[in-house]
C-alpha cells in the first residue's frame, strides 16, 4: 500500500492554496490517492451517512442494500423491530451476504460457505464448523461471537435512517445542529416510497456535492426555474448553516418578488430567463403550499453525500455513492406521506418531471459536473475560486447569493482529510 506516500507527495508538490477554504485545488477532484483517503477519513470516518428510509424496511426481517462511499452496507430491521446496519461483506472470505436491493429475510446468509448471520450482524453458524468424522472444521478456539459482520451505529430522524462507522460519534441530532430544523419541517409525518432513480455521473463526487450547496447557480443555470418564477434571486429566501458549518439548507418562496435595480440589470444578461419560452401546458407549475409556510423550494445538504429536497410538491432524498475519483451515482428516492390523498400523490409524481435524471430543472447539474470533469483532465493545475459573499466561513450571512456553504464544505473536508 503506497497510498500515504503518494498522498504526502501530492501535498508536497501541490499544497492547499494560501487563501484557504475559498479555494479548492483541482487535483482533489481526480487524484486516486485522495479518493482512497476520502473513503477512510470521510465515508468510514466520523460522519453520519444516509442508509435509507424507515419506510423501506417496514417489517421485521426487511432489509435494504446500500453503500457508504464505496463500502457496501445493509440496513436491516430485526425481529424485535430495531434497526441495524452492517457492512455487506462476509467475515469469512469477503463475499456479499445480502445480494438483493430490497426484501425480507430471516437472516443474512453467505452463499459461498454458508456462514449465517442474524439481522443484527452476529454470526450464528458456520457450515462444517466441526468438520466431518473428526477431520476438517474450524479450530477449537473459534468463537462465533468473534466473527460477526462489521456493525455501524444507527440513528433516525423523521423517518430517515443514518449510520456511522464511528461508534463514538456525537448523536445525530447534535451533528445536524440547526439544519435538523429543515428536516423536521419537511418530514412531519410517516413516509411512503414512490420509487427510485439512479443517475450515473462521470465526475468526482465532490463536484456534485458542491452543486446543491451552491444556492446561487440555480437561477443562472436552470432556465426552467427562472423563466417560470419557481425560483428567482429576487424572491424571499434564506440560507441556513449549522454552527459547525457542515450542513446547509436554503429555501425560496415563490410569488414573493421584491424588485431590485441590480437584480433587473443582471437578470437581463442571464441566458436562463427566456422570455420566448412558453409552455403549452402550464399545469406543471401548479403546486400546493402543503406546509403553509409559502416555501416552494427547499434544498438541504448534509456533509458529505446527502440531499433532501422539496421542489414544488416533489419530495426526494438524493444520495451520492462513489466508484472512483471520476465516477459516482446519485440515488434519488421519491416519496410522499402515508396519509397523502390520491390527488397529492399524483401531484408529487407529476412534479417528478422537474427533478431527477430527466428533470426539466435538475438535469443540468449532472451535465455541468461532467463538463467540469472534461475541463480538468487527468492532472489539472490550479484551484477553483469561491468568494461570492466573502472569503471566510461566516461572510455572506444568510444570503443565497453566496458561496459560504461551499467554503464551509471545504473547511470541513480539509479538517477530516488532514489537508
Amino acid at each position, binding site marked *: 500500500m503506497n497510498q500515504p506516500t503518494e498522498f504526502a507527495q501530492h501535498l508536497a508538490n501541490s499544497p492547499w492554496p494560501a487563501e484557504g477554504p475559498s479555494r479548492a485545488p483541482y487535483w482533489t477532484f481526480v487524484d486516486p490517492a485522495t479518493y482512497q483517503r476520502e473513503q477512510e477519513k470521510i465515508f468510514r470516518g466520523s460522519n453520519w451517512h444516509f442508509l435509507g428510509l424507515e419506510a423501506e424496511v417496514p417489517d421485521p426481517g426487511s432489509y435494504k442494500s446500500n453503500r457508504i462511499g464505496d463500502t457496501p452496507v445493509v440496513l436491516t430491521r430485526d425481529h424485535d423491530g430495531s434497526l441495524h446496519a452492517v457492512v455487506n461483506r462476509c467475515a469469512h472470505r469477503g463475499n456479499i451476504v445480502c445480494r438483493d*436491493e*430490497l426484501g425480507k429475510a430471516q437472516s443474512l446468509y453467505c452463499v459461498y460457505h454458508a456462514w449465517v448471520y442474524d439481522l443484527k450482524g452476529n454470526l450464528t453458524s458456520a457450515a462444517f464448523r466441526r468438520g466431518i468424522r473428526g477431520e476438517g472444521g474450524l479450530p477449537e478456539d473459534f468463537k462465533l461471537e468473534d466473527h460477526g459482520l462489521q456493525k455501524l451505529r444507527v440513528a433516525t430522524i423523521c423517518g430517515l435512517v443514518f449510520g456511522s462507522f464511528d461508534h463514538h460519534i456525537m448523536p445525530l441530532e447534535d451533528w445536524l445542529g440547526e439544519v435538523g430544523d429543515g428536516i423536521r419541517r419537511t418530514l412531519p409525518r410517516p413516509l411512503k*416510497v*414512490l*420509487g*427510485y*432513480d*439512479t*443517475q*450515473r*455521473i*462521470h465526475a468526482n463526487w465532490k463536484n456534485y456535492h458542491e452543486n446543491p450547496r451552491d444556492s446561487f447557480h440555480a437561477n443562472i*443555470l436552470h*432556465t*426552467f426555474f427562472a*423563466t417560470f418564477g419557481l425560483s428567482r434571486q429576487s424572491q424571499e429566501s434564506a440560507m441556513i448553516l449549522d454552527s459547525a458549518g457542515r450542513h446547509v439548507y436554503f429555501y425560496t418562496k415563490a410569488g414573493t418578488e421584491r424588485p431590485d435595480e441590480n437584480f433587473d440589470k443582471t437578470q437581463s444578461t442571464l441566458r436562463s430567463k*427566456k422570455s*420566448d*419560452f412558453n*409552455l*403549452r*401546458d402550464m*399545469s*406543471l407549475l401548479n403546486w400546493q403550499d402543503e406546509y403553509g409556510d409559502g416555501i416552494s423550494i427547499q434544498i438541504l445538504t448534509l456533509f458529505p453525500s446527502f440531499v433532501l429536497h422539496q421542489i414544488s410538491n416533489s419530495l426526494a432524498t438524493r444520495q451520492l455513492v462513489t466508484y472512483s475519483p471520476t465516477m459516482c*451515482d446519485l440515488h434519488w428516492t*421519491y416519496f410522499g406521506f402515508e396519509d397523502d390523498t390520491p390527488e397529492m*400523490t399524483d401531484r408529487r*409524481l*407529476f412534479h*417528478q*418531471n422537474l427533478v*431527477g*435524471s*430527466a428533470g*426539466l430543472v435538475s*438535469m*443540468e447539474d*449532472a*451535465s*455541468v459536473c*461532467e*463538463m467540469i470533469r*472534461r475541463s480538468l483532465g487527468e492532472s489539472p493545475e490550479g484551484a477553483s475560486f469561491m468568494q461570492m459573499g466573502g472569503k471566510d466561513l461566516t461572510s455572506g450571512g444568510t444570503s443565497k447569493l453566496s458561496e459560504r456553504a461551499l467554503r464551509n464544505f471545504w473547511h470541513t473536508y480539509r479538517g477530516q482529510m488532514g489537508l
Partner: protein
Amino acid sequence: MNSSITLEARAAIENLNYEWARLIDENKIEAIGDLMTESADYKVASRFNVDRNLPSAVIHCRSRAQLLDRITAMRVANIYEKQCYRHVVSGVQVLGAASDFGANAWETRANYVVIRTMEHDGSMIVYSTGQYCDVVVFEGDAPKFARRHVVYDSRMIETVLVIPI
C-alpha cells in the same frame, strides 16, 4: 387475444414504431407529436420501479402538449452535452384489442435499443434498452399512439435523459 386486426393495420402499427424512432434519430423530434393523439400519455419508467409496482417515472407527460413542452425545453432551455441517438426497434407485436381505448385500439409491444453518440468526443454507448408498452388507435387510416410507456431495463441512467426514447 383478438386476432381480428387486418394485415394492413398490423403493418401500419409496425411502421408507426419505426417512424417514431426515425424522427428522433434524424433530429426531427418535434414531429413525434404528430404520431400521438392529443391526450396521449407518454411515460418513461424503470423496470426496477415497474416490477415493484412503484409509480415513480423519470418522465411522465400526460398529453401531447406536455411532451412538446419537454422538447421545447430541450431545444431552448436545458443544458447538456450535444448528443444523438440511434434506435434499433424490433419485435413489434400486437397483443390484442385495447377495448378501454375504444374500437380499433390495439395493445402493442416492441423492443428497443438506443445507442447514444456524443458530439464532442464521438464516444458511443448502449444508452438504453427496454420495451415500448403501447396502445395504438386509428384516427381514420392513421395509427397514433394513445399511450406510449417506455420501460427501460437498467435502473441507472447515464448522466441525463433529455432526448425522448
